[in-house]
């Protein structure tokens, strides 16, 4: 992991070279991407490997090859389920799951639009709901999601079913400490902007 001094000087894990993408990732995740020896065990067990163009080991490779753009402009990092299977089995504890989390943060900070619209809309809608009431109001989430880019007509047939089974609360609830929650959001969003 890049030490605070290394981060300050701009030098990476290798004292003699300037900081690269892998150093940034190492500093943010605590795991050194150079440990990856491309065995592919992560990709072999990844449930989304059949749907992504970049698999976990490809992502580690591109990090080590300093290919920031290729990573940020690819939607693969957004298709990660965060199921942690890769991290559980990696022989070198490279923690691909955490690395991919970090890449998503970096991608957002860089203003990339590579995230699939639906996934991006969902995360936004979810977080908006929490900011609004402190807890998730599911109907609000669905409405918000559909209007911000989710498939408008999908699940229309099943929504009544949810309601009939008493599984959709119609009244949004606001917790007492909602200001507390909003403050947390503000502070975290500000911190993310600082990193840009």
């Amino acid at each position, binding site marked *: 992991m890049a030490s605070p001094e290394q981060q300050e000087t701009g030098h990476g894990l290798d004292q003699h070279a300037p900081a690269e993408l892998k150093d940034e990732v190492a500093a943010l995740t605590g795991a050194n991407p150079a440990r990856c020896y491309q065995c592919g065990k992560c990709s072999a067990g990844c*449930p989304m490997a059949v749907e992504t163009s970049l698999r976990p080991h490809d992502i580690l490779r591109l990090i080590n090859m300093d290919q920031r753009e290729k990573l940020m402009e690819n939607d693969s990092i957004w298709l990660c389920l965060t199921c*942690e299977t890769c991290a*559980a089995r990696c022989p070198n504890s490279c923690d691909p799951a955490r690395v991919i*989390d970090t890449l998503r943060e970096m991608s957002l900070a860089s203003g990339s639009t590579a995230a699939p619209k639906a996934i991006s809309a969902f995360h936004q809608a979810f977080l908006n709901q929490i900011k609004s009431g402190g807890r998730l109001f599911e109907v609000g989430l669905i409405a918000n999601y559909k209007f911000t880019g989710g498939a408008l007509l999908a699940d229309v047939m099943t929504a009544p079913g949810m309601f009939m089974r008493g*599984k*959709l609360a119609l009244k949004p609830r606001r917790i007492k400490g909602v200001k*507390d929650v909003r*403050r*947390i959001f503000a502070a975290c969003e500000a911190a993310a902007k600082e990193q840009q």
Partner: protein
Amino acid sequence: MKLGYYPGCSMHGTAREFDESLQAIAKPLGLELTELDDWSCCGATSAHATNRLLGVALPARNLALAEQQGFKDVFAPCAACYSRLATARHEMQEDAKLDAKVKEILKRPFSNSVGVMNIVEVLRGLIPQIKEQAVQPLSELKVACYYGCLLLRPAEITGFDDAEDPSSMEDVTRATGATPVEWRMRTECCGGSFSLSRTGSVVRLGRAVINDARAAGANAIVVACPMCHSNLDFRQQAMGQREGATEMPILYLPQLVGLALGLSPQTLGLKRHFVSTQPVLELVAAGAAKGEVK
């Protein structure tokens, strides 16, 4: 056992029967659930997938509340909430910089002293009580115990069972009198939070899970996570359209325990499922008819 109960956002909504069944079995098993006052959302996947600090601060708020409210442990039945709370606790212990930053943001005294427990380990701890109170023979019921991913991984954070070869849910199942089957997709992901945003993936992954459970001879799949339940139950119709296979009821673990304790289907929220639980109830009745009381 007095635990700080953290229901999580879905408990009063789409996972209502999870909460209902849990509340129903709590009293007979001597489980005191005191809901955390003014708890807020843990952030689930969306927070940690887009902002690490947010992904830790949101659950940390709840841990801080629990500490202030005098709880030694927080119990989160939803596997995702459990994972976020336990991860926040772990990350703050391991990363001093993060710990300082989060505490600064929380503006609340917090010494990270609260433990986090999930539904499987809580019920595992109550196995003697379950065995003692079980009145309904579930001997005709074969279930596939589905752990999903977040209950067991990362192992440094969860640690209550072997991540590749867990047995705690099977132990609880055996205590109810039902038979756990041996099957392979026990720890494979159901598709998690992609239910709305990438339904196709969820359908693909869920189908594999259900097919394997079926091939192993299970009458039902038992889950411990509202997302797993939703992906396997709510989305099962989408899977079935292409296979034309028979339906597989999806039960929450407390529902299984509740059936053993002789509680009514109504009380346990068994009418709220998308895939009818009637076949399970019939098997329970068959077991009762055989008269094999433990």
